[in-house]
């Protein structure tokens, strides 16, 4: 920045403001000692008219203003407005409060001097200038929140880098079958958005990539991204699938949450974006043992598969960061009383979601897990259908032994799953065990009422234990309303597992200099007022990484996060007041 | 002076399967007939002049300037004459609904020849035909062989058998329109491109219909004209009565509507709606005011005879121009 910063100090008249006070000493101190070029001691006239204030600021070419005196925050807003109008950031107005009034002028002049000096020193020490704001944005996480935020910004004609750690965008939502309460098919509404991301020229999509480090300041970050080796060329792969067909290495599919197998060269799911294959190096025989390489032989495109490809670090300069890293589901093996991992037909809700999904392992048929010839427990079309299914709410949520928070969505998705069971197996009996039924959103209570009428047994009482009993599964719970012990024999148990903060949250928070709350979610800067902003201007959070929420709230948050970014870029003034808490702190930069 | 020197136009009028109304409409020119005769010679008009088919056959090709062909093609005679007149005529005009779209005779396509014969020669209550005699195309008598035209299974419009230059729609066409057209030809005004409909408006009936129209075309129950108390002012469709007006060309003078009867569609469709019945069916379907399947069915049942209603004058011209089962009996 070539132009020198011009700081002005305005001494605000006391409220009521009739008596004049002698500020001489302070003014001398400011002018001679602190070398402040502009000192305004009569503020009443100044603040009487907003235009006068603007004129004064423009006239003196003030780039920063210190409001001092008694309760100067009275004038904070108008001054901020004036600064905004004059083309400066709102945070260029700071406060040096006299505290107990002008009495202090006599008793504690030294203290006042110190405080003013400190404020000025702080202001001068601020080296950050945001005039070279980078208009690009990086969005971390390619779930629905990341997709929405990216599209929102890209539609404004701005550049977005969308970084996703897995091979495709889509996140958890892509795994779901239907969404509550409208029972829209999740893929139907999500895939068009994914395709849009893939096709939008403003979005630079980086899948299979992870954030390594972040440096720089708000407005000018350098984000280092590790592009993991896909070993399949994104440009030339035509997604024909021949390689995958012939690949001999089989591993469990992450997308199907382990209910099926995939190959070492694979496409995460058929509608993946980008619709290209990638090689899972850990399981590839060629990479591990240099034996095989059959994919290269069958690939119809020349030089498409390249085993020599290495991870690559790239640096992306951006101005804003949007975090949309989502969540992980609770590891149900921890809740040992439910026998997950030991009893084959105890599933997590996510597994069940895949099971009932038409694109899942059985093509949408609900069947029991059976043993194949090799002894693996798998889902196979044609296996017997469960006749009774139990659903347990709050697994890993609202539980001091695991997570104290409520995962918000489980009640509703459990009701949805119960409905889908009834839809696919009308004769099946469904038993749902809940603690409090949290049907909170638009149309949710209505959905709950509808489910109640579908003949699903909805029982208040948390299941305490799930045990195996003669090939069936025994669920033991207390029916609180009926006041009895329920020992229900079922064929399948679905554990409505809660949401947990992602493993990498802590590291991410450290890297970005933002905070986590006591449960490990990213902390917003104000729980009510600034739900998508963080302590660090330039970094916004969206979606479940901030706390459990349903899809509409996630989408709204993503858009809201995008709003802040677009706003900053549009206004050209980088970090307007909205990024910071409105709490007042004395003798500190207030914005 | 020059007009007198010009050779007079040669004019022919012929009827196929028709009621004769069209010919009457030609006669309806009344005193203007003198103007016509002044400008043209009538060389062929079976109902008015005694000119034999063989006389026509003897004419050189293109001898006749204008032929007004009315009636649809129902039998081999109509077919033969249509072809003959086409050869002999410079401008062949499909005159009236029947030759234009099939008209009322076109409704014969709901039945097969056999069904028609059965009805006419056997089943009618007043028929006494114990020997079950039916017309034969050839019949030998002592004097020689007698022949009758073959009664076709299918009714066709004129343009389905020969190329037609212009269409003059109506059942019957408005005489004023005929005179206008004729005068245009006589005065040598620039003629519209072949294939055009002449003597009618480009826009459909509603354009000039004086009844009040709003967008409130929501029908909960279809009514026959006598089931409503017509205020004489509101659009028939808004009163639940099917009116073919929107899918029918204007130009007829709105006689039906002025007579408080809904339009039946004799003037045929506007240019971009080749199948007026389908178009109208589509529009009427949209107007049904219900989203409930059972209720929709009930409302639809209120239309007693959709095919007959929507295709009263245009069945042979429709996308599906005849009933399916009929041929199987043949």
């Amino acid at each position, binding site marked *: 920045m070539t132009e020198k910063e011009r700081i002005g100090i305005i001494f605000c008249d006391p409220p009521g403001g009739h008596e004049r006070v002698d500020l001489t000493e302070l003014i001398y101190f400011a002018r001679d000692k602190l070398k402040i070029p502009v000192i305004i001691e009569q503020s009443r006239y100044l603040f009487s008219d907003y235009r006068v204030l603007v004129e004064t600021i423009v006239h003196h070419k003030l780039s920063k203003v210190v409001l001092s005196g008694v309760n100067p925050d009275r004038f904070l807003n108008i001054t901020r407005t004036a600064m905004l109008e004059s083309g400066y950031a709102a945070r260029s107005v700071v406060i040096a409060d006299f505290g107990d009034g002008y009495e202090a002028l006599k008793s504690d002049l030294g203290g006042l001097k110190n405080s003013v000096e400190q404020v000025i020193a702080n202001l001068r020490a601020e080296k950050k200038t945001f005039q070279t704001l980078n208009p690009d944005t990086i969005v971390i996480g390619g779930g629905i929140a990341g997709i929405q935020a990216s599209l929102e910004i890209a539609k*404004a004609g701005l550049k977005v880098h969308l970084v996703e750690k897995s091979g495709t965008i889509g996140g958890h939502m892509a795994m779901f079958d239907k969404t509550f309460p409208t029972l829209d098919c999740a893929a139907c509404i999500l895939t068009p958005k994914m395709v849009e991301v893939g096709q939008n020229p403003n979005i630079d999509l980086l899948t299979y990539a992870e954030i390594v480090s972040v440096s720089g300041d708000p407005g000018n970050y350098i984000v280092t991204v590790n592009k993991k080796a896909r070993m399949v060329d994104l440009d030339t792969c035509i997604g024909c699938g021949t390689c995958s067909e012939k690949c001999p290495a089989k591993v469990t599919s992450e997308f199907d949450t382990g209910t099926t197998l995939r190959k070492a060269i694979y496409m995460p799911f058929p509608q993946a974006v980008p619709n290209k294959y990638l090689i899972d190096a850990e399981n590839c025989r060629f990479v591990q043992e240099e034996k095989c390489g059959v994919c290269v032989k069958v690939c119809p495109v020349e030089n498409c598969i390249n085993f020599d490809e290495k991870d690559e670090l790239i640096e992306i300069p951006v101005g804003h960061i949007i975090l949309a890293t989502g969540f992980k589901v609770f590891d149900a093996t921890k809740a040992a009383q439910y026998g997950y991992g030991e009893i084959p037909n105890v599933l997590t809700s996510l597994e069940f979601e895949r099971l009932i999904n038409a694109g899942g392992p059985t093509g949408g048929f609900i069947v029991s897990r059976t043993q194949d010839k090799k002894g693996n427990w798998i889902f196979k079309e044609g296996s017997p259908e469960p006749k009774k299914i139990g659903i347990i709410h709050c697994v890993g949520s609202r539980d001091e032994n695991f997570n104290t928070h409520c995962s918000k969505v489980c009640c509703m998705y459990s009701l949805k799953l119960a409905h889908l069971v009834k839809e696919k197996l009308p004769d099946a009996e469904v038993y749902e065990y809940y603690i409090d039924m949290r049907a909170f959103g638009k149309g949710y209570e209505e959905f709950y009422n509808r489910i109640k009428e579908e003949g699903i047994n909805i029982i208040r009482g948390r299941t305490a234990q799930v045990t195996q009993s003669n090939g069936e599964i025994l669920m033991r719970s207390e029916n609180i309303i009926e006041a009895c012990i329920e020992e229900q024999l079922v064929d399948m148990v679905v554990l409505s597992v809660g949401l947990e903060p992602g493993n990498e949250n802590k590291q991410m928070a450290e890297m970005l200099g933002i905070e986590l709350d006591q449960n490990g979610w990213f902390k917003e800067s104000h729980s009510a007022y600034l739900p998508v902003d963080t302590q660090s201007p330039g970094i916004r959070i969206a979606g479940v990484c901030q706390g459990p929420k349903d899809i509409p709230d996630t989408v709204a948050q993503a858009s809201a996060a995008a709003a*802040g970014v677009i706003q900053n870029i549009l206004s050209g003034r980088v970090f307007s007041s909205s990024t910071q808490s409105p709490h007042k702190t004395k003798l500190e930069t207030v914005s | 002076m020059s007009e007198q020197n010009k050779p007079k136009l040669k004019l022919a009028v012929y009827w196929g399967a028709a009621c004769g109304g069209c010919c009457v409409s030609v006669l309806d020119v009344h005193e203007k007939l003198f103007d016509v005769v002044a400008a043209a010679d009538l060389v062929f008009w079976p109902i008015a002049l005694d000119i034999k088919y063989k006389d026509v056959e003897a004419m050189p090709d293109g001898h006749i300037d204008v032929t007004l062909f009315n009636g649809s093609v129902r039998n081999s005679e109509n077919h033969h004459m249509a072809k003959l007149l086409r050869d002999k005529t410079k401008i062949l005009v499909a005159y009236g609904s029947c030759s234009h779209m099939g008209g009322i005779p076109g409704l014969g396509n709901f039945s097969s020849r056999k069904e028609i014969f059965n009805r006419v020669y056997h089943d009618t209550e007043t028929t006494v035909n114990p020997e079950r005699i039916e017309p034969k195309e050839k019949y030998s008598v002592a004097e020689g062989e007698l022949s009758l035209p073959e009664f076709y299974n299918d009714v066709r419009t004129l343009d389905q058998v020969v190329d037609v230059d212009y269409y003059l729609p109506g059942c019957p066409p408005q005489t004023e329109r005929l005179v206008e057209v004729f005068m245009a030809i006589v005065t040598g005004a620039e003629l519209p491109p072949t294939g055009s409909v002449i003597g009618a408006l480009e826009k459909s009936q509603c*354009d000039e219909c004086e009844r009040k129209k*709003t967008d409130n075309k*929501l029908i909960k129950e279809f009514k026959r004209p006598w089931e409503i108390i017509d205020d004489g002012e509101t659009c028939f469709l808004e009163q639940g009565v099917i009116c073919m007006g929107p899918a029918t060309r204007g130009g007829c003078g709105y006689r039906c509507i002025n007579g408080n009867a809904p339009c039946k569609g004799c003037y045929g469709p506007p*240019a*971009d709606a080749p199948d*007026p019945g389908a178009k109208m069916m589509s529009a009427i379907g949209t107007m049904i005011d219900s989203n409930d399947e059972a209720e929709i069915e009930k409302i639809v049942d209120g239309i007693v005879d959709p095919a007959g209603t929507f295709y009263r004058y245009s069945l042979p011209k429709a996308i599906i121009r005849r009933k399916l089962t009929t041929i199987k009996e043949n």
Partner: protein
Amino acid sequence: MSNIRIGVYVCWCGTNIAKMVDVKQVAEAVGNMDDVVISKDYKYMCSDPGQELIIKDIKEHKLNRVVVSACSPRIHELTFRKALENAGLNAYLFQMANIREQVSWVHVNRKEATKKAIALVRGAINRVRWHEPLEKRRVDVNPATLIIGGGIAGMSAALEIARADKQVILLEKEKELGGQLRFVNRTFPDFIPTSDFIEPMKDDVLHHPRISVLTEANLNELHGYIGNFIGHIQTGAKELKVEFGNIIVASGLKPFNPAPMENYGYGKLPNVITSLELEKMLQTGEIRQTNRKLPEKVAIIHCVGSRSSQYHEFCSSTCCMTALKYSNQVLDMLPNSQVYQLYADMRAMGKGCEELYTATSRKNVMFLMYDQEDGLPYIRKAGPKEDCNLLIEVNEKLSGERIEVPADLVVLMVGMEAHEQAKKLGQTVGISLCGNEFYIEKHPKLDPVATTTDGVYVSGSCQSPKNISDSITQAKAAAARILATINYGSVEVEVTTAHVNEDICCGCQTCVRVCPYGAISYIADDRVSRVNEVLCKGCGTCTTSCPTGAISSRHFTEKQILSQIEGVMLELMEN
């Protein structure tokens, strides 16, 4: 039509298509059709060389129509359209035949599949013959925004937009800004004074040079379409005419009036108050009974008017947490008092809420559960000898006992309901209401702030009851949409719209009601209907309902589809 030159390209898609369809035969079979200049097959049409091939042919053979027979147009239609554009041809002179998803992947007989593929390609060739060049259209966006409602949502949206330097007109029907939050003093679960952010926010809104605040104002009329609205705003006796590009409706909601619920005796029994009245007491810092004594027992009844078969079926979403907040606030003010919570399900979802529930339950709060289906709590006056004013009778569900709760003060957690003016405003701006009278959003999942009318957004509680942060989030989300369009300067409107041939239109007005977007209007002066092509989304319903054939859908014209049917049905010459 004589100069039509069609190029046909049949894709192998590796073996995906070629395995089941004899692509060479397909290319040959259609090669001799009218207007087909060249017909080729290629391994991967979507690949760069494939697209290059098309571009080269267009230039060399002066093709002016292209048919690609490959996968679903949903996947690659855009790809090939771009290729056409690169070759200098209009993108819409292109048609795809889907012989992968619809043929090779679903059929098992190679001969049959090939036959069907040929039919589909013929259909596409027939159709493309009638394609017309279409131009992408955009309409300019007026950068000003109208926001209706000066509550937290409206103000947040206003600031979000104004801070990006764009003009905002904020309408508030009351005298002052703040909406329902004027009556709320602290947030849950953090107990932050709402004035902490409401007051600065109000100041910001009132001072911001980019925001014009109109209080006691209503929107009377609205004309125009996205990017170009004109509104008539009533302020006092004046009516202003204002132009703006987008609208955010943030008109909020109103609390339920419990007076009709006889069991609570609200309005009849003293000391039965609504949550808002308690909020007022908390604001003044004194909780007192009617006789000015301090209450010792405070009962809070949840779900008043919500989750009820008689009143509102929906859950008002915020009352549970507000009730917990009150418990804490009451106990802070009256540390020796006892609080009773009569709840149905404790809906403590959201960040920090479950934790607040746990913390509250450790205080002097007795939680009692009731079920509306099992009878509502009944309040009666206590006898003079009792140590309380009121007695609440209720079937307690967790114990199964019928109990009696003594209380000095009963707080009814009234639910929320839509404003009575919501319907009228909705009609003015073109948003429909859902069953419970709240505004309906475009898509409940993926488009929670947009509405079916482009350029009109909803945010905050007028869409459904919401807490503060969700309202603000929604407001900002709506602002994001608007900022994006403003930044772009224009919005793209549907290309494949319907249009009326006014030479034919007879003005029967059948089409007007058919349009779900209100895009068709009858122009009385010209006696024809006209399509506002900015509003039209191209569904084609009007085209089909037009009895005269005056309306046609671009890119889905009658001719195009009928020819496609003909092509598809063309009998294959049996070999």
